[in-house]
């Protein structure tokens, strides 16, 4: 017999568990955001101070060089590099992902399964394991500390996943849709853009967000392949806050907030395309 009391207790326990899990996930992020608005001294205070006693934008001002006591960090350059590299590599990865995903979903060709498996397996190699070989090749090719150098690496990093995700979405679209469009007067190309692409849009948007965030947040490879404001990205720029013996945690947190914001904005913008369950109904119900 389950008494009402027991039922309620179960529910409460579930809520507490959910709360604890959420706290574990969210507190570090929250700490970073709070720290961005407090002086460095307060960061290291014991016992810890949770709510900044005198919240202010000093840290941001310092980063951008408006404070007297610190050299400005070239945030605008880093920001521009990050944006250019992330957007370009995402665009290229999506283009390749779309063509590849479509090909895997619609065509039969030799070694199809082998190629697909190979693409997936390439993801099992951690990026950092490749950093030395990539570094050697890139330095021979003169790609070290260039934006194209990093863009190529990120495209390679993202393509398997975008192909896999987009392939899944095209697979969901019955091939009769494109055939109906062709009978209706479309070329194969028109049928793709007018029918299949709009239907796979949410998948392509998801793949785009993933690719963008991967590139935007990537640190390990970027830290090896970049040197200067020519190509340094925001995550690598975070290291500018470490000196030999001290770390400017507050400044680093402020920078982290700067990194997070565009990613959040983009995710919200694209999110409305992310309704996963496509409202089909074009086929039998």
């Amino acid at each position, binding site marked *: 017999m389950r008494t009402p009391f027991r039922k309620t207790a179960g529910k409460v326990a579930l809520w507490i568990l959910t709360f604890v899990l959420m706290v574990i996930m969210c507190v570090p992020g929250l700490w970073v955001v709070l720290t961005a608005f407090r002086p460095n001294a307060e960061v290291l205070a014991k016992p810890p101070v949770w709510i900044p006693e005198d919240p202010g934008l000093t840290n941001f001002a310092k980063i951008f060089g408006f404070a007297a006591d610190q050299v400005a960090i070239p945030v605008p350059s880093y920001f521009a590099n990050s944006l250019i590299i992330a957007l370009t590599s995402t665009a290229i990865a999506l283009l390749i992902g779309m063509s590849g995903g479509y090909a895997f979903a619609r065509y039969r060709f030799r070694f199809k399964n082998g190629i697909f498996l190979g693409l997936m397996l390439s993801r099992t190699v951690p990026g950092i394991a490749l950093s030395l070989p990539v570094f050697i090749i890139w330095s021979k090719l003169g790609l070290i500390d260039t934006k194209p150098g990093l863009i190529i690496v990120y495209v390679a990093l993202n393509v398997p996943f975008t192909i896999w995700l987009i392939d899944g979405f095209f697979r969901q679209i*019955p091939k*009769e*849709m494109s*055939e*109906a*469009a*062709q*009978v*209706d*007067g*479309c*070329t*194969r190309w*028109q049928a793709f853009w*007018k*029918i299949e692409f*709009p*239907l796979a849009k949410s998948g392509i948007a998801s793949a785009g967000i993933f690719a963008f965030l991967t590139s935007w947040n990537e640190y390990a490879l970027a830290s090896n392949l970049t040197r200067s404001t020519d190509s340094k990205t925001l995550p690598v720029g975070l290291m500018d806050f470490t000196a030999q013996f001290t770390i400017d945690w507050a400044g680093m947190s402020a920078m982290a907030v700067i990194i997070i914001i565009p990613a959040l904005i983009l995710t919200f913008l694209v999110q409305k395309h992310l309704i996963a369950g*496509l*409202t*089909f*109904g*074009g*086929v*039998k*119900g």
Partner: protein
Amino acid sequence: MAEITLDKVVKRYGKLEVVHGIDLKIAHNEFVVLVGPSGCGKSTTLRMIAGLEDISDGAIRIGGDVVNDLPPRKRNISMVFQNYALYPHMSVRENLGFGLKIAKQDPKMIEERVAEAAETLGLDALLDRTPAELSGGQRQRVAMGRAIVRHPEAFLFDEPLSNLDAKLRVQMRTEIKKLHQKVKTTVVYVTHDQVEAMTLADRIVIMRDGNIEQVGTPMEVFDHPLNTFVASFIGSPPMNLLPATVRGGAVHFTDGKSLPVPSRLAGKVRDGQEVTFGLRPDDLTPQGHGIAEGGERAQMELEVILSEPLGTETILYTTIAGQEAQGKMYGPRPVSPGERLVFDVALEKAHLFDAATGRSVAAD
């Protein structure tokens, strides 16, 4: 003018040949139904006509021109798919007008055509809905509407009714027939349902394993099946097919029973020939319970195993030569299992097929 001609058309997938050189002539405005069991190549044939599958060998002509290498959009045909394939991101109106819009037609003209098609199919109230907001039958109608707005030279249907429930299927079947009478066009219609084929077709094409077994009007294929396959495929309940031997002008069954060879087939069989005796249930009726009395008849006393009353008639299950056979009782009275009845065999409607080849002896 759009007659469609198939000339020794072959389809191979790699080494596997699935359509073996079929010939077919479809006249202008004719309603032709391709029928046959699953996997016999109906859809493949239709898709070759549409241009959605390459033709491995032979030629297809639409309105006289060889279209082998033309893409679907240049064949001036439209197609209704089994799963309808409506565009889910467009309203019914946009679905209907899509083909005309692609052809860059004048928006006013598109609107008129869409309105015309919507009226023909009773879709007026649904024009602003999306396919997801429609019932199965309504989607089916939109799919047909999309086919008619373009005024194509031919309609191709691939099992358009197989996703509907039984009642709606019968209703839509009638609508398709009406539609064809209204918008006179050549129609090629694929189904595996022989009732659909019989009721819709001007001519039926019966296919099996990538070959055409027989082409003819519904009555021709019903009354004169060329072989046992067609005989068993067309008609419901199916024709009784019983093994027998011809001896001394009579057909002898294995259980010792015999019937005279139908007089119209007398010259077509040899003594000692192994045959299959074909008789439709309608032609095996208890005395006094047939549809038409008179004609060439023989009698057989048979034991009724089971009876299935259907209202105006009752299906009677019996055995001849150890095989189950079905008869029909018109103006039925209750029959109890085990009852022995004298049946009338309408010999002028009976068929004889050569046991070895399965071909009708009347055909040679």
